[in-house]
């Protein structure tokens, strides 16, 4: 008699209710499946450039580790401690960026359910919207509406069909020159600097490349320039020059690049090895963060 009384006490039911609620919340946050929206569907269709970084990959762990150390070191006392504890939770699985229009796609999986309210509370300066386990960030909310409303195949879903295998790489990028957007961009840069860096750009349909890291300091990759008309002679000379320019641009940051340009049917490719990326990324980001404070 006595025990059934306890069983029916309101306190008991409040505790049970809270426990169930907490359990349900935990299941919803960490176990309940979340829709996986393909990366390629979220890239704004008008963008001509996209680059993606798989932050959860084994290869990137060395760079991420150094980066975490540097960022935590820059943040004072308790904030630094909080950041260190929450870093693994806040670290996205993948970050993808597009250019013209500029947008950032942050893929976090189920954690998005907890992170999204935090973004709302933090007074984040960009417009954002969740798509399954990803958040799309952009300057204007109209771009988010456009992506949400898009149905059927777009420029980037088609690219995903051809270059989807790149998603298995640590970092990759794709530039689409199908509508001449890359040509236009290169020409405006050439006019600005009065320098013919890439005169054969019109012959290029797509540029795609990737890097895979081994340890924190060494990576290998390939960049392929696909030709529209199959004529790769002029393009080869340009790719060699671009490779030389990138090598010389990276050196002051302590990054060593060594590569080889090869011609294949319909494409010119640069196979390369790269060293010193982790330290360079940490140095550049640290100086940006310090100067921004």
């Amino acid at each position, binding site marked *: 008699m006595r025990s059934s009384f306890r069983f029916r006490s309101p306190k008991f039911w409040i505790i049970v209710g809270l426990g169930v609620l907490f359990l349900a919340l935990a299941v919803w946050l960490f176990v309940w499946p979340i829709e996986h929206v393909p990366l390629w569907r979220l890239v704004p269709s008008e963008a001509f450039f996209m680059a993606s970084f798989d932050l959860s990959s084994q290869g990137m762990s060395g760079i991420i580790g150094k980066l975490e150390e540097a960022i935590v070191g820059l943040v004072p006392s308790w904030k630094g401690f909080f950041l260190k504890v929450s870093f693994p939770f806040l670290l996205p699985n993948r970050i993808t960026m597009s250019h013209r229009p500029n947008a950032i796609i942050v893929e976090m999986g189920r954690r998005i359910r907890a992170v999204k309210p935090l973004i709302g509370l933090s007074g984040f300066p960009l417009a954002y919207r969740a798509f399954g386990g990803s958040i799309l960030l952009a300057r204007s909310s109209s771009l988010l509406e456009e992506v949400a409303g898009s149905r059927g195949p777009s420029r980037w879903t088609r690219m995903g069909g051809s270059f989807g295998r790149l998603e298995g790489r640590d970092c990759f990028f794709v530039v689409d020159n199908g509508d001449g957007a890359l040509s236009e961009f290169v020409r405006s840069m*050439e006019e600005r600097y*009065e*320098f*013919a*860096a890439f*005169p054969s750009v019109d012959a290029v349909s797509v540029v795609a490349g990737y890097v895979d890291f081994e340890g924190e300091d060494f990576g290998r990759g390939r960049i392929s320039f696909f030709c529209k008309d199959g004529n790769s002679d002029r393009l080869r*000379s340009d790719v*060699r*020059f671009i490779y*030389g*320019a990138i*090598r*010389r*641009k990276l*050196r*002051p*940051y302590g990054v060593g690049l060594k590569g080889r340009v090869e011609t294949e049917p319909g494409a010119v490719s640069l196979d390369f090895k790269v060293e010193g990326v982790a330290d360079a990324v940490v140095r550049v980001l640290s100086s940006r963060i310090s100067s921004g404070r």
Partner: protein
Amino acid sequence: MSIILFALMLSVGNAGTLDFVSDRCMAVVTARGAARDVGLSWLVDSWAHTPPEVPIRKLVADIEPDEVSLAIFPSGKMLVVLGAWKGKPKTRDLEALIPGALGVVRYKEMEITFSTGEGAFSAYSLCRGNLLIGTDRKLIEEAADAREGRSVEHLRSYSEMEGNLVQEGDIIFFADNRNQKFAEFLRALEDKWKMSLLLSADRLEWVGACVDVVDQDRVKGRVVFKSSDGRYIEDVRDDADFLGETFKRKFIAEGVVYSGHVDVKGEVVVLRFEAERLEPLWRKLFERGVLSLIRP
């Protein structure tokens, strides 16, 4: 006969501009025939008469020197030596070069006028038919020391460079990389521009170049890179190739016709080049200031 005697007297009394350039310099460029050679005289004259009128341009326009050397030292300081002129420099033009309160000191056979003002130059001296203009007084004193067998021309590497250039040029450039002087200079530019110019800079012994300014539209020349070790020759070649490509691409954008070729001979890499339709580019360069391109 009297003309020969006069010429002999001149050769004994006057010194060449390079005699005053100390072997401590990092790089030196010498133009010979600025008053006689068709192409070079056009080039120097156009530079001297391009507005805005600044004291050094006015001076060159007035005295029309036939030989000019510009030396850059590891500290970034500069010495200009003008020689074999048509008209003697006027004192007021010389004083305009070094604004501020003036003073005079004697050093060896030289009388050096210097100023305490802030300007590109702060000292000058006339010596044996040459006018020396320096960023500071010490450089002019060093120039007097250089005449005692310590000029850049006495360097083994300078003679070696002259031997490798083969072709006669109106303009000769020499960069000395002993003790990594030239590499350090490039490193300063690298920090400024966040871009390496020569990846193999540490592996070079010296760099030389000669340019024949055929006329206002055409130049031909060669750039010679001496590797300090045969093992690095491919790296040096890569730099020469890149330099040639950079010229080509700059020239394409400016409507200049360019052709170039890189050869390797032992420990030396040679970039031969020829360019046509250059006049608009020269004018643009003069308007923006040539020195702005080479100062770190």
